[in-house]
């Protein structure tokens, strides 16, 4: 018996070694293939696609970057209104996004959807659509539709917000405790009352947390809306860039930074107050 055991274990050892060797070769092949793809990417995008002649050596690069370093403070008073506009765009966009998210979340939550075969897939599709289109693309669409100004920015931010808010809300609805819902149905409550009394209080903390988070993100989004003509700080950025006033560009970037920091602080305390 002990003999048999020994031979089995020796055989096992050989098999294990062979297995390990083939595994190692396979791993090396994978790494080599990855390196080849990486080399191909670098060659085509960086080596061939860059205008090396125009870059003009280390001094040239440094000289260009240096121009950004001299901040044009004279622009500061003119930034106040666009900064406010950016904040308002973020806030109004978030509010509009929330309102639009309500039906989407309702349709897209499997346990409350009014129709499983039509509205549920529609809700899910709208969630994906909202998130898969970049805010700049949304803004371009709305600038085309309603013209320049803050309004297309608000609409773009709202459209982009729907995906996240409604997805989190729908998931919260799907995870509720069904017992209070049963109770509201049992007292003869209608569909609205069931949702408002049975579901609403359960998902409220999640929703408010999500909205604050989304508002924070929307400040960032609103800050770049101006690049396509939808108002706010982005528009100033775009103009300064067009005038080659690099110091002004830096100041706008600093203003955006300050705004985002402000949003961060406000949302931190707001979230703490809610949850």
């Amino acid at each position, binding site marked *: 018996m002990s003999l048999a055991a020994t031979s089995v274990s020796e055989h096992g050892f050989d098999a294990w070694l062979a297995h390990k060797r083939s595994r190692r070769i396979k791993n090396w092949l994978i790494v080599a293939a990855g390196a080849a793809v990486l080399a191909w990417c670098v060659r085509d995008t960086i080596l061939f696609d860059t205008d090396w002649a125009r870059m003009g050596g280390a001094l040239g690069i440094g000289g260009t970057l240096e121009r950004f370093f001299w901040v044009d403070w004279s622009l500061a008073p003119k930034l106040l209104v666009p900064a406010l506009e950016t904040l308002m765009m973020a806030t109004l966009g978030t509010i509009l996004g929330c309102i639009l998210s309500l039906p989407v979340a309702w349709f897209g939550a499997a346990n409350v959807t009014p129709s499983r075969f039509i509205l549920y897939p529609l809700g899910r599709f709208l969630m994906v659509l909202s998130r898969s289109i970049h805010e700049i693309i949304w803004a371009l669409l709305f600038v085309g539709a309603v013209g320049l100004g803050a309004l297309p920015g608000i609409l773009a931010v709202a459209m982009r917000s729907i995906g996240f808010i409604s997805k989190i809300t729908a998931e919260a609805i799907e995870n509720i*405790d069904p*017992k*209070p819902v*049963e*109770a*509201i*149905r*049992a*007292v*003869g*409550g*209608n569909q*609205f*009352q069931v949702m*408002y*009394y*049975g579901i609403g*209080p*359960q998902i*409220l*903390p999640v929703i408010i947390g999500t909205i604050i988070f989304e508002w924070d993100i929307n400040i960032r989004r609103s800050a770049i809306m101006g690049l396509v003509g939808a108002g706010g700080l982005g528009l100033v950025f775009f103009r300064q860039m067009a005038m080659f006033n690099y110091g002004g560009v830096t100041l706008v970037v600093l203003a955006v930074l300050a705004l985002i920091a402000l949003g961060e602080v406000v949302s931190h305390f707001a979230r703490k107050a809610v949850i």
Partner: protein
Amino acid sequence: MRHEKNIAESRATRGSTADTVASMSILQVRNLKVSYAASGPQILKGIDFAVDGEDFCAVIGPSGAGKSTLIRCINRLVEPTEGDIVLFGQSVRPLRGSELRHLRRRIGMIFQEFNLVNRMSVMDNVLSGRLGYTGAFRSFFKAFPREDIDRALHLLERVGLQDHVDKRADALSGGQRQRVGIARALMQKPEILLLDEPTSALDPKISRDVMRLIRELATEFKVPVLCNIHDVQLALESCNRIIGMQDGYKKFDGPSKGMRKQDLDEIYAMEVL
């Protein structure tokens, strides 16, 4: 109020099932069958019984006998597959939409796990018992009519929660939460009370207190009760009629006083598998 109480007391002293003073059945269940899936097992396999105006009727039986399903069929939280349920002289099964809601608001229900909205105040939970009678506008703003608020406060006092009106429901103990559940059910001015294991989430002492309270209030408001309960001792103590169920069939139906040990043995025979 006083008049009501006198009637209640005289009723209680008369011994409940002995005299059936020309009371017609409030609830009639005929040949009720339920299976949750079309091809799935049958949970109820043809149940017949009736509940009269003064019944405090317990449904007992082992787990899986179909007690909860039976209770939930009556207000259609569960859809029956066959048979007939006649409540307040009205057939329950064909009702749709607002007709069904209008029926449901006449039925009070008390749940095993209380089914309160935890993040809402005790008062709002009790007031939600009136939702079946409240329009969309009022319910949106939680602006219930004066008389509802008065009634809610009165009921909260009656169940001993007058000091907890503004607390959140999840700040209460189990027994207190069930009292909120009782007050919510009574807010409906129900014409029948359905109790789904109202005490099995509570400890034995609190269970007895809660059952006593329900019994008292049911007598006071003259509401018949259909109560599904698995604590046999508690059922025999607090109910005047017992329906015994086993594996989807009714095995016993009679006054709790006449129940013998062998009847119980028969109901619970299946429990030891």
